[in-house]
């Protein structure tokens, strides 16, 4: 086991010895700061300051929205629905704070997917491009072990950058917007209704679910990297599929087998907010499909990495 740990350590050393890895963290930090500055100045994230008369304020807001809208629009307006939820349940809206900022930044996890794809795509392909694979594979270590050390290193990178996103968002949010206690209750949309949930639970849920998509796309890029030994191809393929995923489902929506497409299942959020993409899908169905895809990706990566000759350029 210590042997395996040293291999993972080697991969991490190689990863962080490269400037591009630090540039990724730099970009992430810059975007988080950018969002915070935007929110503080132009975006007015914290414009709603509710005092003791918050009920009146909410009524006022509803009236303002209703003005100039048709009755139908009013009935379905999210702002009114949300305000009504506060009023009906007698909850005073919280001011925008670090926790809310962290939860909102969950959308940045797609950027993490992008970075993780880049890392996963390069971790095998680069060894071939640099020619170092020849020196790497003539050690008394099984190729399978080297492969899994590389894969573990990719997951470790994903985890590290996720923690970075969380912590950096929280600190930035705290500086710009302040903190409402250690674990405030947030009001979020769920299914067709609103609900109140603890900040920690909401963070765990939304980041955790996005992690599923991230891991699947990283594993896909890792597989392409192992099969074609070309990082450009792996990055291109994985990003294309990530972007085009929804169009692909849309295109095949009418067919029965559309629900077996990977991208119909990667967004588990669909079971918490809103309705499933295709009728007949459930959380356990999606998890099953994801596991099957995952196994296929891993087996193909393994086969191509361990069984194929390391030939000349």
């Amino acid at each position, binding site marked *: 086991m210590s042997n395996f740990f*040293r291999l993972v350590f*080697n991969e991490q*050393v*190689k990863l962080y010895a490269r400037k591009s890895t630090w540039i990724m963290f730099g970009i992430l930090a810059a975007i988080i700061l950018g969002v915070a500055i935007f929110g503080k100045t132009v975006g007015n994230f914290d414009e709603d300051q509710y005092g003791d008369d918050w009920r009146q304020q909410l009524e006022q807001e509803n009236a303002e929205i209703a003005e100039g809208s048709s009755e139908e629009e009013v009935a379905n307006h999210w702002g009114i629905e949300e305000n009504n939820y506060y009023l009906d349940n007698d909850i005073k809206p919280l001011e925008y704070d670090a926790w809310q900022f962290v939860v909102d930044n969950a959308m940045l996890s797609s950027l993490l997917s992008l970075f993780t794809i880049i890392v996963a795509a390069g971790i095998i392909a680069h060894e071939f491009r640099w020619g170092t694979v020849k*020196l790497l594979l*003539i050690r*008394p270590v*099984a190729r399978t072990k080297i492969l899994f050390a590389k894969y573990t290193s990719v997951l470790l990178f994903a985890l590290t950058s996720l923690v970075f996103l969380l912590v950096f968002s929280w600190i930035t949010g705290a500086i710009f917007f302040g903190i409402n206690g250690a674990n405030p209750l947030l009001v979020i949309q769920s299914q067709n209704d609103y609900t109140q949930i603890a900040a920690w639970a909401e963070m765990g849920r939304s980041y955790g679910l996005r992690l599923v998509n991230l891991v699947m796309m990283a594993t896909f890029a890792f597989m392409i990297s192992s099969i074609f030994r070309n990082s450009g191809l792996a990055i291109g393929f994985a990003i294309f599929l990530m972007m085009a995923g929804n169009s692909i489902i849309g295109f095949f929506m009418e067919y029965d087998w559309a629900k077996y497409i990977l991208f119909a299942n990667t967004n588990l959020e669909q079971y918490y907010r809103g309705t499933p993409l295709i009728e007949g899908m459930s959380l356990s169905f999606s998890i099953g499909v994801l596991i099957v895809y995952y196994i296929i990706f891993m087996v193909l990566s393994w086969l191509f990495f361990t069984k194929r*000759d390391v030939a*000349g350029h």
Partner: protein
Amino acid sequence: MAKEPAMKLIDLKKDIGKKQIIKGLTFEINPGEVFGFLGPNGAGKTTTIRMMVGLMKISEGDVLIKGSSIKSDYKNAIQHVGAIVENPEMYPFMSGWKNLLHYARMMPGITEERIKEVVSLVGLEKAIHEKAGRYSLGMRQRLGIAQALLHRPSVLILDEPTNGLDPHGIREIRQYIRTLAEKENVAVIVSSHLLSEIEMMCDRIGIIKNGELVAIETVKALTKTEEDRIHIEAVPLDRANELLRQTLQLEPTMEGENIKLTAKREEIPSIVKCLVEGQVDVFGVQVQRSTLEDKFLDVIGENAIE
């Protein structure tokens, strides 16, 4: 107990697609021996080396390293091997030192002292903390040899090790390879497409052509004291024949317009002098190549890659 060969190739074959590119190589390399693996580009040297270290699957036959098969007992076999395959490629964004640390972590029991020792052996102390991407090819070659030596291998495989080195560097490497073989009993396999280079450091040479071993020769048999065959075109022939027999006690034979004889290379000037002083007109002196060079040039001559 008979001396176990450090490495043994048994009817090694490699098929790629329908084509057989290595057609049954069989030879042994003993501890303490420097073996030259010689052949034109495309003859299959690198493919053979890749099979020796397990980078390529063996289609048929086997490679035994200290008795362990690289096919069925990979870990035990490979732990005795240090190698450079083709160019010594390193992680360009890490220092030479970190590159060595990286490989050291993959093998058991390599101390920091050992790494330092290896670095000073190849003479890289000054540049070891610079990024490998800034190294010249010669420095990378040295770093490559350093990583191959980290775990004190019994078999050292060097693919074109003098590539990119200046004459001074080549001499150092050559001396270093000799020392390793003689003092530490390492079996060294050196591949090259240059006979002149390999002749100077190897004990034995195997010549490969189109995936077949065409000759294995001991280098000692062709040292410079060996006699060359010499053809002399002279007029008049009879007189030349007589002169050589009487003055130099040689035994020439006549063949058409030429006189044929065997003599050491350093005798040639005195032969020519003797003939000229004896009023014989010399039109040409031709020295025939030694047998190994013959074979090698035959191979190189038709440098067709099948």
